[in-house]
Structure formats: structure tokens, C-alpha cells
């Protein structure tokens, strides 16, 4: 297991190195790096001073080395707009994004898995067809438009929920959270449901497909022959095995929720790092864009690493044959 973990860690580090190279290439090689990193409003003297300070007169490999050293020290430059370290800004907004993504993931699991089980168990019945139709609809709904419709219906027409923003937060264990208060939930509900819709469809399809596959297996036929109650068969034998592919994709799906939060946060004015990214792109605040990118890549690589480790723990076959997997 130690060797397996070590191999995975080395792989994750290799991916990080490659990604840092790509981000470096994207920011420093595409376009004029001075324009990217120096405030466009700066004077000519300031401009020349910054070119030297940034080491842009150095050969490319020296520049990359400096970039990596800065990266390892957590120094990605200051935001043009806010004047504070870019990385600090990202970390400030991160809890809001993780909160809405996590809430969406829980909602997707709580509704997608049971619906998928029913659809897989009774594929030909009206309810199975209805759930499948629902999942195709969910796949086709443009997320940002549904968000607008939510705002129109629940905030403007009915006036039940706020149209946007995060509302009051409570300081819990050093993090600002809104799930601890009712008012926080009122703000969180629409963005989280909006973000969850696509994943609900995905989980319905995934669960329904594996349920149908599992129902054909011998151990299910044996359980039926033994006279076990259908509820017990589905609740225990089917569910347990249907969860395997779900656990597999869970980590990546969480990562993709964090990414798609960019859209939902923009619609609902949710003050997370996704909205910060869009604002920074609009305002040409390049250091913040770079910081966001690196933080998200780090997040993805960590998630993958953890999922790989869990997989190795759960399934001995992966661990033993892991060398070439």
C-alpha cells in the first residue's frame, strides 16, 4: 500500500509540474507578459522597472524557475484591482464556492441515487419512463437560464427567496459558513439546487444503468430465489453494488461542480471564487486568473490523488495491479 501511495503521489506531483509549465506557457509565452503582469496604466519608467523586477530580461528557463519558486512560496503577485495578494483573494472566496458545491453534491446524491434505483428497477413502468425523461430534460436545461428562471419565479414573482448574494455568514472553526443559519439557507437554496440539476440527471443515469446491470447478476437471482423481500434486495444488495461506480466518479464530479459554480455564482451573485474569476477576466486582473487556475488544478490533483488512494483501499485488485493502471 505504501508503494502504491508513493507511486500515486509521484504521479500527482508530475501532473502538477506539467500543469505549472502549461500555466507558465499560457501566461508568459502567449502575448506580451509585461502587458499581462504590469498594470496597463503604469508609466514608462515604472514599466521598465517592472520588466527588470520581473526578470523578463532573463532567459526563459530562468523565468520559469523564478515562477516556480514564487509558486512554491505561495507568491503569485498582487491583484491589479484589489492590490492584495492574488492567492489571498482566492482563499478568501474559496469557502463560499466549496459550500455551494458541497450542498449541490449532497442534493444530487440524495435525489439522483434513489430516483436512479427506481428507474433501473422498473425501466418499463410509467415511473421509470418518467424519471428517464426527467433526466434527459435535466441534461438539456441550460444551467444559467434555469438560474434566471429560478430568480424570476421564486424571487421576483413569489418573493419567497432572495434573488442573490450570500446573506449573513457565521464563523465556524475559522470558516465563514451560511449553512448554520436559516437566512443562510434561504440564500444557499436556489444556487445549490441550480448547480445540482445537471448532476442529478447524471446520477440518475449512472445509478439506473448499473442497477439494470446488477439485477441480471446471479447473486440477485439467488437472493430472489431465497425469497428475500424486494426492498431488502434493492436496499442492500443492489444499492451496495450500484454505489461502486458512483463513488468512483464522486471526486471528479465534486471538482466539476466547483468549476460549474463559475456559472451559478455569476447568476446568483454568490461571492465565491468562480464569480471572482469572471470579474477578474472582465477587469483583465491577470494575477487573480492565474491564482484561480493554479488553486483549481491543485484541488483537482488532490481530489484525484485521494480518490485513487481510497480506491486502492477499497479494491485490492487495483492495489496489486496498480503498477500499470
Amino acid at each position: 500500500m505504501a508503494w502504491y501511495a508513493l507511486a500515486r503521489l509521484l504521479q500527482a506531483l508530475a501532473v502538477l509540474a506539467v500543469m505549472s509549465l502549461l500555466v507558465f506557457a499560457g501566461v508568459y509565452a502567449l502575448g506580451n507578459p509585461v502587458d499581462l503582469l504590469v498594470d496597463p496604466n503604469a508609466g514608462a519608467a515604472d514599466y521598465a522597472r517592472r520588466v527588470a523586477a520581473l526578470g523578463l530580461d532573463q532567459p526563459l528557463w530562468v523565468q520559469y524557475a523564478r515562477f516556480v519558486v514564487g509558486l512554491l512560496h505561495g507568491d503569485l503577485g498582487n491583484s491589479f484591482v484589489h492590490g492584495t495578494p492574488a492567492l489571498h483573494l482566492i482563499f478568501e472566496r474559496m469557502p463560499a464556492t466549496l459550500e455551494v458545491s458541497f450542498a449541490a453534491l449532497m442534493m444530487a446524491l440524495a435525489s439522483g441515487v434513489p430516483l436512479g434505483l427506481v428507474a433501473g428497477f422498473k425501466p418499463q413502468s410509467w415511473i421509470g419512463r418518467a424519471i428517464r425523461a426527467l433526466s434527459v430534460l435535466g441534461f438539456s436545461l441550460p444551467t444559467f437560464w434555469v438560474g434566471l428562471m429560478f430568480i424570476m419565479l421564486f424571487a421576483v414573482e413569489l418573493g419567497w427567496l432572495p434573488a442573490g448574494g450570500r446573506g449573513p455568514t457565521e464563523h465556524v472553526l475559522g470558516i465563514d459558513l451560511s449553512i448554520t443559519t436559516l437566512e443562510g439557507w434561504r440564500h444557499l437554496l436556489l444556487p445549490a439546487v441550480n448547480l445540482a440539476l445537471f448532476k442529478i440527471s447524471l446520477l440518475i443515469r449512472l445509478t439506473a444503468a448499473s442497477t439494470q446491470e446488477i439485477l441480471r447478476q446471479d447473486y440477485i437471482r439467488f437472493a430472489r430465489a431465497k425469497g428475500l423481500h424486494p426492498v431488502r434486495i434493492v436496499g442492500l444488495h443492489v444499492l451496495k453494488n450500484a454505489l461502486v461506480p458512483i463513488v468512483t466518479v464522486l471526486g471528479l464530479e465534486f471538482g466539476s461542480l466547483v468549476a460549474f459554480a463559475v456559472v451559478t455564482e455569476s447568476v446568483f451573485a454568490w461571492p465565491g471564487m468562480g464569480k471572482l474569476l469572471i470579474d477578474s477576466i472582465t477587469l483583465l486582473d491577470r494575477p487573480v486568473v492565474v491564482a484561480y487556475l493554479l488553486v483549481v488544478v491543485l484541488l483537482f490533483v488532490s481530489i484525484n490523488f485521494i480518490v485513487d488512494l481510497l480506491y486502492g483501499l477499497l479494491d485490492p485488485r487495483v492495489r496489486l495491479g496498480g503498477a500499470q493502471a
Partner: protein
Amino acid sequence: MKGAAGLLARYAEDRVAAAALALFALLALAALAAPWLAPQNPYDLAQLDILDARLPPGSAAGATELVYRLGTDAQGRDMLSAMLYGLRISLAVGFAATAGGLALGLLVGLSSALAGGRVDALIMRAADLQLAFPAILLALILLAALGPGPGKIVAALVAAQWAYYARAVRGVALVEREKDYIAAVRLLGLSGPRILFRHLLPNCLPALIVVATLQVGAAIALEATLSFLGVGLPVTEPSLGLLIANGFQYLLSGKYWISVFPGLLLLGLILAINLVAERLRVLLNPRLQGV
């Protein structure tokens, strides 16, 4: 398989899927014929009357005979006309991105499958790496660096989607490669490219059609999202996503039509494409035959 007519007949056995195909054909025709169907040219500023701005559906124009059946936007533009032109742009971008992604994916996937060994492992590792990174972020960052524009958004969509095709192509090609007919043409001494394009490629196509259909829908949705976020198409060429974004600020004051109608059209388009893809998946997958 009994040819195209037989396939179409089997396709139409599912009435929902048949309706979806009809809807898609209708929307595609409407998009093609937009200059003739639209009551006004929404981008000819001379035809717009700012006094007619934000009129609700069914209003008559102040100065001309025109009736705004779906209302007008903030510039006094007829929504129906803007939507027809927007549909045109959305479909064009979606299809261009799919064609580009498919071409690149075919090239990479087939070479990967044929080369095998280290080359194959390296290419697929790169594809995996990219698939692990959400398409929307990749496209967003690319467009932030490139700037808005139809050509650039197509390039960003291709960059974000090629890996799906490459993996699908490689998967199918690996299976096909082992079959007897490939061994037979190899024994006949045919050249590598000839085997690739005349024998391997045609047999990989059915599986690719499904992936490509799904990706057209995904590309259109992604383009709409990027345009909504303001990094996709420029305001001079508004797709459906940009039309929806333009109506966002008026939604809170109850002027629903600027965002709602383009959104419904976008939903109809993507839904139709996804339903067609779903039906094709069942039809073209031998494992699901007879289900």
C-alpha cells in the same frame, strides 16, 4: 443493418425521438432561412426604433406596420428576429466545433490505436488529464486569453472537446483492429493509410455518430454559457446565450420576454439534439439491440 431507409424506419418507431428529429429539422431550417423568415434584420441599426425598446409580446411598432410577436429588447429589436439570427449563430458554432473536434479526435484516436505501445499510452494519458479538467474552465481560460469572436470560440470548444472524440475513436478502433477483416486486408498487403481510411474508419463511424450528436448539444450549451458569461461571442453577433444575458438585468423588473423566449428556444434545440442522440445510441449499439 438494411441501409439508411431501414434505419430511419426503425428510428421512427420511437415517437418521441421522431418528434425530436422533426423539431430539430424545423429549427435547422428556420436557422438557415432566418434572413427570409425574420420580420426585420435585427442587426441593421436603421431598422431599429429605440422608441420601441422593451415592448411586451404582441405590441405594435410605433412607426411601422410591424407587430413584435415576442416583444422587443433594450434596443427596440424584434425578439423573434433576434432569436432566429441567434439560432443561426448557435447552430453554426455548434456544428463547426463538432466538425473540428471530430476531425482532430479521429486523427489522434486512430493514430493512437494504430501506434499502440508508448505513443498510445502517452496520448491517452494526455486525454485523461484533459478530461479530468472541466471543459468549461478550459474554454473560459482560453477565451480569456484569446478574446471573443466566432473563430476563437470554435477553437476553444475544439480544444475543450477533442479528448472525448479521441477516446471514443481509440476505444472503437482497438476493438475493430483485432477483427478478421483487418487481418485480411493486412495480409493483402494494403498500405497503412488505405487500411486506416477505407477499412478501419467506416467501421468506427456508427459509434462516433452518437458521440458527435451528443457533443453538438454540449457544444451549443457550452457556447451559450460562455457567451452568457461575456467571454464568448461579441455583441455584434449575439447567439442565444448572449440574448439571454442581455435580458438578465430586465428580469428583475418583470420584463421576462427578453430572457425567457431565447432560453426556451435554446432548451428546445438542445433537448431535440439530446433525444436524437439517445435514440441513435440505442439503435447503433449492438449490445442494446432488441431491448
